[in-house]
Every structure is written in C-alpha cells, then in structure tokens.
C-alpha cells in the first residue's frame, strides 16, 4: 500500500521583501533625520523635567562668557529678519545699510550670528575661510547693554519678519552666571517681550530631584 506522502515544505522564508521594506525605512529615517548642526557656540544646557519641544523659535545662546548669539533655523526667516533689521535700524547703524544681494545671501546662510549690527557689512563681505576663522576665534557676540540694546533689535526684527509668530528661546550654559541670562531677559523686557522659553534637555531618570515622588497638590 502506498503511503500517503506528506509533501515536505521548506521553512525558508524569503527575506527579500522584508529586506526591501527595512532598507526603505532605513533610507527614510536617514534622510529625514536632522543631525544636530555643528554649533559654533558650545553650550551645555541644564536638565529639567519639561518635555515640550521647541519649534519655530529664534534662539538666543548665551555662553559662559556672557556673549549672546542668535540663531534661526529657517533660511527664509533669516533673510527676512535681516531685511527688517535694515529697514528699522539702518539710520542708526550705517554698517548695515545698502547690503548687496550676495551679502544678504551670505547672512542667510549663517545659522548662528554674533556680531554687532554695525559690523554686518564688513563680515558679510568676508570669504569663506576668513569667516570661518572669525567665527571660531573672534566672534564678539551681540551687544546687550542697556545703552546698546542690539539683541532687542534683532528679536524685534525676527518678530516683524514672521508677523510675531516666533518664540524667543534662551539657551544658557548650566554653569554660566545667571546674570548673563538675566541681562538678556532684561533687554528684551525693555522691548516689551515677556514670554520666553528656556532651552533645557531632558533629565536622566536618576537625576536628583527629578523623581516624581511627590505629586503636585494641584493635580489631586
């Protein structure tokens, strides 16, 4: 009597399709991932519990020496910001008036800016190498004294450029003197800007004081 043959089925699964899918995903993630831009100003931000993300902001970076730098993510906003700044402060600072198209383009390619307004023309006519050296060695920061409130001018220009739809983020170094940050806040308060976001990074779960052991009475 012939036995009923049970056809042997291979357990090999064709991996090609899975491979396709996974590489597709991989490419997608690689392409959409934005690497942390190489920041010229090294700042070690403090940790906090907050988990709100920052988007659409003009970031004022204050380093440990108290120098202030501004950065805006979108190139178009940077361009518009410079136009507005020229429009509003051109009479005050001759160094920004009459920038050529190339100079404005040059400005809008820099994601971090930290020079006095009156030097804009000189800096935007540097060549790549000169500018790199300038950025690394001698960028003086944006003046934010009570008599020379340029940081306020920049922020106002950014607000005009985006019709007020921009947040003002302050990024300070955790070990820097608080006076530097307070000074920036004070300068902006003079321009009637009272809402800020302070950039922090998410604390490690074991961080001191971060354990939510005590529930807030407000939540009960």
């Amino acid at each position, binding site marked *: 009597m012939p036995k009923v043959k049970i056809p042997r089925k291979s357990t090999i699964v064709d991996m*090609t399709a899975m491979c396709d899918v*996974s590489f597709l995903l991989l490419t997608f993630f690689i392409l959409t991932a934005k690497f942390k831009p190489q920041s010229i100003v090294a700042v070690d931000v403090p940790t906090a*519990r907050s988990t709100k993300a920052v988007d659409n902001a003009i970031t004022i970076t204050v380093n440990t020496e108290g120098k202030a730098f501004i950065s805006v993510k979108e190139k178009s906003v940077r361009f518009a910001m410079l136009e507005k700044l020229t429009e509003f402060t051109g009479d005050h600072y001759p160094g920004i008036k009459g920038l050529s198209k190339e100079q404005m383009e040059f400005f809008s390619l820099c994601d971090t800016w930290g020079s006095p307004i009156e030097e804009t023309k000189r800096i935007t006519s540097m060549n790549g190498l000169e500018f790199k050296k300038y950025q690394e060695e001698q960028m003086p920061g944006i003046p934010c004294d009570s008599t020379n409130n340029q940081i306020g001018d920049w922020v106002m220009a950014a607000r005009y450029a985006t019709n007020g739809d921009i947040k003002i983020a302050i990024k300070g170094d955790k070990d820097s003197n608080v006076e530097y940050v307070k000074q920036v806040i004070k300068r902006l308060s003079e321009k009637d800007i009272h809402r800020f*976001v*302070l950039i922090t990074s998410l604390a490690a779960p074991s961080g001191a*004081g971060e354990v939510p052991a005590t529930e807030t*009475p407000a939540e009960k």
Partner: protein
Amino acid sequence: MAQMETGGGGGGKHNGGVRSKKMSTRVDLTPMVDLAFLLISFFMLTTTLNKPKAMELNMPKKTDNEEEKQDVGECQVLNIMLDTLDQVWYYDGLKVAGLQKTTFAGDGGIRKEILRKLKAVPTECPPGKKWVDANKDKVKQPEEITMGPRDAIILIKMLKGARYKNMIDILDEMDITGCKIYAIQDPDPIEIEAVGNGGVVKEFAKEVVTN
C-alpha cells in the same frame, strides 16, 4: 538561525558521475535584515532623543496701571534665594529674620517648603479685598469687594554669581509642585546681606523689615 536546513544539502546522495553542483542563486538575507533593523532603531532613537526641550518663562510686565496691579498679602509670599554655592535660602513674607537654608534635594529640600506654602496659603491667609469702581461715571461710590481664597506667591531671587542651572532647577521645582504664581526678581540689599552673613540678620534690618 531563522530557518532550518531541509533539503539535505547540495544533493550529495546520488552516486554516479561527477556532477557540477547546482548552486542556488538565493542569498540568505536574514543578516542583512537584522542589520537594517538595527540601523533603523538606532536612527529612530537618536533623532527623537536629540531634540531640545524647553520650559516656558513669563516675566512680569511693568505697569503703571492700577487696575492691572495685584494686591499681595504678606502671608502669601515665600521668598526663595539662590546663592553661588547651590544653596537655597527661604523665608516667609517679610520676615527676613526667619531666613533658613536648605538644598535642592528631592524631598526634604526646598520642594517640601513650597508644598507647605501652597497648602497653607488658601486656608490660612485672609482673602484679599479690592476696591472696584464698577461704573466709572463717578455716580456710584467705588466699593470694596472680597476676593476668593488666595494662592501662594513665590518670589525667586537669584543672588549675584549664582549659576544658571539653579534658576532652571527652581523653575523646574515650580513645575513639579504645580505652583502657578511665581516671579523672578532682583534681591533686596537686606537679603543679600543676610545671606552673606550666613543667614544672620542684623537687628536694624529686622526692624526695617517688620515695620
């Protein structure tokens, strides 16, 4: 790993003439898939973890308009001062003489004091009163109305040379304890002196403050 050999290898059972082995053109893609998924997880994790976070800070606006001003009772206030040595100093209301020192430690530190204040103020402080001039036509006299229960107000004062990290820590503490009303101010000379003396307040200062 993910598969089992079933076909019995390259067909070596048959004896006979030398046959060239039929090589399968199939390549085992399992390791490649493994690798791809490893990379995917790496990219997913690093991209989401690198985003900066932010904490909101609203500074008070200077105003001369009386109606925008808020009346603050002494018993509502908790003053917190932060110094250069990461220490936290605090006192209630105007009683600088009661200055005490604490730390940022999880439960026993300043958080305990903030929670105590938040709990005590609505029950212990008498509700505030406000003069309201409802119809501004001067026909009706302005009347005094009683406001609802008060909330604690925390005044944060950063002493000269304090680290920025401490400011973030105390603001974080406000978030953790759910404190709604707080402000960052400049310290008074009396407070600077008291902290400078290690918490000892001179006699004259006590008088000035309690008067």
